[in-house]
């Protein structure tokens, strides 16, 4: 795990350690997810005879994006079944956050042929897409190759990968799963971005109003409801994929709110 993420995801790190695993902090590069991936690949080629490499997102070389998508797509299939019971029809929109894009791909994939449902992926807008300080390659990237996949990538004109900025560790990645790039290019899914500030606001609102503390990743998806619901009819059914719980992010949020434990 990137050393910066070990710090801001300390609760998750402690949990992983309780389960008996070792966590190696990675100091190279920006010390976040991309650098952890570089180091995992380096470890793998060194210990390839007794190590299996697996990536937690829908990126990397084939067949990893397919493996992760297929396992995650149980969520989308479940949403289709439950929508029949709850709404008597398919939802008008499905909203999910996109870093590498595994939770989004899991819920989007079974819906690809269900044209009546809008698929909306929400990327990390960081300080704002126009500032360049973000992690939104589908909004502000160009095609490139990183970690064995060709996809939209945050890069400069020389093909060097740019540093990313997001309050959310899980979205802080300069690339994105290649199938998302495809869904963008064929126009089947829409990809928008939400700033750190709006995501934090949504984190507080959802926690207070629903009693559900969403992960900061998920908070990006919730934050997009505000502009989205303004353009939809009040009877519209919208499904938000709650990709993770927010207790792991409590240190980050408390620090921003100026609270010390």
């Amino acid at each position, binding site marked *: 795990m990137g050393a910066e993420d070990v710090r801001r995801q300390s609760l998750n790190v402690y949990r992983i350690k309780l389960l008996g695993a070792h966590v190696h902090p990675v100091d*190279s*590069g920006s010390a976040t997810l*991309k*650098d952890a991936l*570089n180091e995992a*690949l*380096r470890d793998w*080629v*060194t*210990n*390839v*005879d007794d190590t299996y490499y697996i990536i937690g997102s829908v990126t990397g070389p084939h067949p990893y994006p397919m493996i992760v998508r297929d396992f995650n797509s149980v969520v989308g299939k479940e949403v289709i079944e439950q929508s029949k019971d709850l709404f008597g029809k398919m939802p008008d929109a499905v909203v999910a956050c996109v870093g590498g894009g595994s939770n989004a791909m899991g819920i989007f994939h079974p819906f690809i042929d269900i044209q009546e449902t809008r698929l909306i992926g929400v990327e990390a807008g960081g300080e704002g897409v126009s500032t360049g300080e973000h992690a939104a390659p589908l909004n502000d990237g160009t095609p*490139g*190759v*990183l*970690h*064995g996949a060709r996809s939209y*990538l945050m*890069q400069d*004109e*020389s*093909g*060097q*990968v740019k540093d990313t900025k997001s309050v959310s560790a899980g979205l802080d990645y300069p690339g994105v799963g290649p199938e998302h790039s495809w869904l963008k290019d064929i126009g089947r899914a829409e990809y928008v971005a939400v700033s750190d500030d709006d995501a934090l606001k949504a984190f507080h609102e959802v926690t207070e109003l629903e009693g559900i503390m969403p992960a900061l990743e998920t908070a990006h998806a919730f934050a997009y409801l505000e502009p989205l619901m303004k353009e939809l009819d009040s009877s519209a059914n919208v499904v938000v994929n709650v990709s993770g719980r927010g207790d792991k992010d409590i240190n980050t949020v408390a620090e921003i709110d100026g609270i010390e434990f």
Partner: protein
Amino acid sequence: MNRLTSKLQNLKENNKKALVAYLVAGDPDLDTTLDLMHLFVDSGVDVIEIGVPFTDPIAEGPTIQKAHDRALKNNISLKMILELVDKFRETNTETPIVLMGYLNTFISHIDLVQSIGENSADSILVVDVPGELNLQTYGITNPNINTISLISPTTKDDRVESIAKNSTGFIYYVTLRGVTGSSNLNIEEIKTNIQKIQQYSDAPTMAGFGIKSVEDASTLAACSDGIVIGSSIVEMIADESKTKEFGRIGEYLREMKTAIS
């Protein structure tokens, strides 16, 4: 004929092994890189491999990673590296030059790579494409540039054949499981695998990754067509980057040359 192909043929006909030496362009600065290239040649180096710096060099160990980082701080681009090669060619039209780098850099500069003339770089080694692919797959069809594919200790037999056929420059045999600069050479395995490669292809096979001592060099040269030295040189460049007294590098290369002769 391509400068690299003809040089390696010539060495083979005279029963000599090739000494390939690596450095990262722009580490510590481009003027020093040019001086070092001439020092390499004066010290017996047959082929110069220029590392093209990339933000995420996944095949590199810590020594070369840091060299990439230092070069990137100087904003070294592929265009600047080709200008460096032009300068080198003003006084040296003999020594073949291989550019070693990562796919994203080359596909970000397709026009530039297409325009490489006869009196420039001679070959491109892309570290992060499957061995069956090469730059042609990505629309780069420059006849002045030949390709080098990598084969590792874990490459399956059926792939060895197709990868070997895909190499027009030389075949780069990765001598260990790991990244550049590691130290776990298994000489018996290396011998067996290089013999296997040579059954499938007439292209010269160079052994690289983890070769540090004159003993390694002499043993591996005996079972291959030449050796590649990288991390040891890059480390010495880093040590002397302030004083720029690189006499030790010349001495080291001459010792290596003697060891493989």
